[in-house]
């Protein structure tokens, strides 16, 4: 029977395709969260594999903090267009204007503020399901996630009372107002994602490869220096996230390993020009992927607390 054999990537792929088709079949108004990051790039290919030659039967949704890497936005918009998908973007700034969210005094990062924006978008479009690219190997609280993760009408996750998930029988039932977050990449590791990108020859935003960039040292990480504040009629969106006079600023050859926004993404010094270089670097890495995410460093339960509140 050796000819009937799937390697680990083929196994993970067929599992993820099955999950995506369950979503298309069981939900009335699903959406796919697409940020342009490496995990959601894999989601798009899996959606193509699950649904072609038909259209991908769900719009793409992205929540912007307003601090995004411009390269990522360009890539996101282009990919959505190439795939013929509808892209819905909701931003933290719009949410401020509408009073859905409010700036946190003394807090520059808008990571937390993505939560009310996402929940408002789910309500606005009556989405009953959102597919995300989160993986269990990223973080301890995520290690406890189900493929189909139920959220109540407040968008909350209750980790102590999750629906058991048995065989490949996913319980997709929700009442009006409730919704499901679905994670087809649950069983993928960071290495699997890169190996899949290589195997499928997927394009990734160029900030994953080494480039020259001005960075400054903060909290044990090299953070990118934000773009200059040019429009004097508006407050600087990066106020508080710019290097202080005493901070070490240097031009370095670096890349991102994981992408949040510019405020919470640590750059790693690296000389990688190809996907193979990245795979080599990941296999030799001595810190986890989210070790470069400032948003996870807040406390040991940082992710758990955000997920309970409705984070993805």
């Amino acid at each position, binding site marked *: *029977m050796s000819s009937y054999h799937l390697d680990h990537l083929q196994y993970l792929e067929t599992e993820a395709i099955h999950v995506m088709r369950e979503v298309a079949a069981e939900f009335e108004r699903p959406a796919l969260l697409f940020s342009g990051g490496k995990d959601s790039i894999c989601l798009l290919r899996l959606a193509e594999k699950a649904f072609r030659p038909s259209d991908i039967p769900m719009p793409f949704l992205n929540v912007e903090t307003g601090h995004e890497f411009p390269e990522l936005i360009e890539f996101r918009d282009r990919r959505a267009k190439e795939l013929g998908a509808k892209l819905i973007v909701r931003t933290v700034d719009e949410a401020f204007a509408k009073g859905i969210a409010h700036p946190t005094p003394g807090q520059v990062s808008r990571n937390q503020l993505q939560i009310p924006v996402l929940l408002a978008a789910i309500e606005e479009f009556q989405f009953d399901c959102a597919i995300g690219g989160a993986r269990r190997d990223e973080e301890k609280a995520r290690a406890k996630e189900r493929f189909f993760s139920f959220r109540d009408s407040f968008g909350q996750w209750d980790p102590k009372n999750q629906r058991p998930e048995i065989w490949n029988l996913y319980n997709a039932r929700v009442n009006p107002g409730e919704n499901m977050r679905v994670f087809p990449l649950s069983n993928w590791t960071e290495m699997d994602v890169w190996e899949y990108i290589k195997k499928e020859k997927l394009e990734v935003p160029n900030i994953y490869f080494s480039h020259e960039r001005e960075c400054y040292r903060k909290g044990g990480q090299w953070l990118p220096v934000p773009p200059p504040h040019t429009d004097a009629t508006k407050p600087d969106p990066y106020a508080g996230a710019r290097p202080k006079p005493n901070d070490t600023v240097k031009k370095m050859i670096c890349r991102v390993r994981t992408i949040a926004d510019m405020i919470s993404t640590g750059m790693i010094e690296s000389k990688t020009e190809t996907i193979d270089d990245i795979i080599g670097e990941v296999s030799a890495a001595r810190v986890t992927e989210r070790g470069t995410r400032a948003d996870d460093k807040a406390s040991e339960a940082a992710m758990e607390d955000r997920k309970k509140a409705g984070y993805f």
Partner: protein
Amino acid sequence: MSTHSHPIELLRFNTCGSVDDGKSTLIGRLLYDSKSLMEDQVEALEKSADITGGGQINLANLTDGLRAEREQGITIDVAYRYFATPKRKFIVADTPGHVQYTRNMVTGASSANLSIVLVDARLGVIEQTRRHTYIATLLGIPHLVIAVNKMDLVEWKEERFQEIRSEIEGFLPKLGGFRDVKFLPVSALNGDNVVDFSKHTPWYEGPTLLGHLETVHIASDWNYGAFRFPVQWVNRPNNPTDHSLHDFRGLSGQIASGVVRKGQQVVVLPAGIKTTVKDIWTYDGSLAEAFCPQSATLCLEHDIDISRGDMIVGLENLPGRSSELSARVCWMNPRPLQTGKKYFLKHTTQTVQAVVTAVENKINFDTLETVEAAGTLAMNDIGAIKIRTAKPLVFDGYATNRLTGSFILIEQGTNLTVGAGMLAPPLEACKPEYSDFAI
């Protein structure tokens, strides 16, 4: 620096045992000793050791991810871990030992190739050992490892190890038996026989735990028996990406068992219509054949009315078809099973209404005998039930097919998953009145 240029197999396993048997410690040890931990994880571990562990690194903190778990020092929910060696990739489900969380063990074990049951060498076989071994057998997990842990606390005595081994070998036949059982003496805390051989067990000639996980034969764990293809999604493009596909009508799904070939005759159930597989379509091109568990889109010779929940099968070894079903069910909710109450039943890709008409018995885990169930099952009970469904199911017995022989019960209103069911073999194969499709 390995970049896995050769195909690598994936082994899924789960760990189970009683509270404090050291399950999380064992997984922590596997990760630690196989150098699968990263610096920031070790750093976080050391940080929490200073605060709560009196300075000693607590390997269990690696998998106990939720705040309540760290506070109470227990594992509440299934935690999934991933690691790789140059030989294999592993998905580990760390499943809890507390009796009230048995449902999570079922969750973690249902998709596993292998189960590790931990036994505390000092306590020997207890109810939880029997329960977990029973569940692993019931779920049809192909490989079992009994890890006799804390051997350091019984001075590495071979007699103690053999005593536990004989007791388990004594009740295994009652469970229907495993194809493959391994017994290992280990100390998860000190790492003996986990990744490296112990110097305390000269009498033990088997592999280390990791050595066994890396080499146990799993290639034939998938079901290459009769062909079963539950239709998941009807693929009918409005604007096909390729204009030659304007009349494309495909049936998308994941092969639950067996192999399908282009040109092969198949039967669509429950309609009972015989037709031919015209094409096995995938995004990467058409296939001459496809096998379990591949996902594919089948195009059939005839334009038949087929929808989600139908099943396409081979001509040989037809499944059963009935709305009166016998099954064993593991109850997973604090609200006990009620006969006469309507539940949703999800089987393959369809959901139907169902009523439990009788609870015939349940398992007593001390004796592994069946006992009177008094018409109900409480949380964590496993018993034999009769069900009537609003629409007949096309199914196989769980023992021959894990995917077409299993179902979940969902409570109406709350939508909670309350039961996991394994179907008894059909009394007879369905006999479709074949209507060869004629236009």
